[in-house]
């Protein structure tokens, strides 16, 4: 029993570290793909393609690491994650489409970037995690 349980704790820690590494790698390659074109290789299409391809490939690894991490959590943690993701997704969809409708009706200046939506979803996800942890404290 002791060995099993320490294995579970060890696996959870390992999954978290793995997810952290994949996240960092994805963020780093995203930054390279974004700013490399602007400040390093400029109009070199091949280098841009390579940077985007590497970022995409690492993104796939990040998705699997995230999935692995979620499956390794216990049932309460999974519930907290599910509720936070549901909040984030629904706020993202509703806000994004509302903004799109406002832009089509020419009621707002249509200059929102995809990054604005990602920031909104990230913030609502963090709020969801905070609220979930507080609820089940």
């Amino acid at each position, binding site marked *: 029993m002791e060995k099993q*349980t320490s294995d579970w704790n060890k696996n959870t820690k390992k999954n978290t570290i793995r997810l952290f590494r994949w996240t960092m790698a994805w963020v780093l390659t995203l930054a390279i793909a974004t700013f490399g074109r602007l400040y390093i290789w400029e109009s070199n299409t091949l280098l841009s393609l390579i940077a985007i391809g590497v970022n995409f490939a690492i993104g796939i690894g990040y998705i699997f690491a995230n999935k692995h991490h979620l499956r390794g959590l216990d049932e*309460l*943690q999974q519930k907290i994650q599910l509720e936070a993701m549901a909040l984030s997704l629904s706020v993202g969809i509703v806000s994004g489409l509302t903004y799109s409708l406002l832009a089509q009706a020419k009621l707002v200046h249509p200059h929102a970037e995809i990054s604005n939506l990602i920031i909104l979803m990230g913030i609502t996800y963090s709020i969801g995690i905070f609220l979930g942890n507080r609820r089940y404290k």
Partner: protein
Amino acid sequence: MKNRLKVLRAERDWTQADLATALEVTRQTINAIETGKFDPSLPLAFKAARLFGLKIEDVFQDEVTS
């Protein structure tokens, strides 16, 4: 759903962390179950009952009264 986890744990002089480790969940989960904020799944409930050497109904009880 009511449960006797806290009592059973105290009888054995186990902390929440001890029970969490034995059931392969976090201490937060044990606390949430003990305080009635979270109902465990059937597999986790059976695992807890098995750990205490009891039947599942001796650990968890339905709160609905007829």
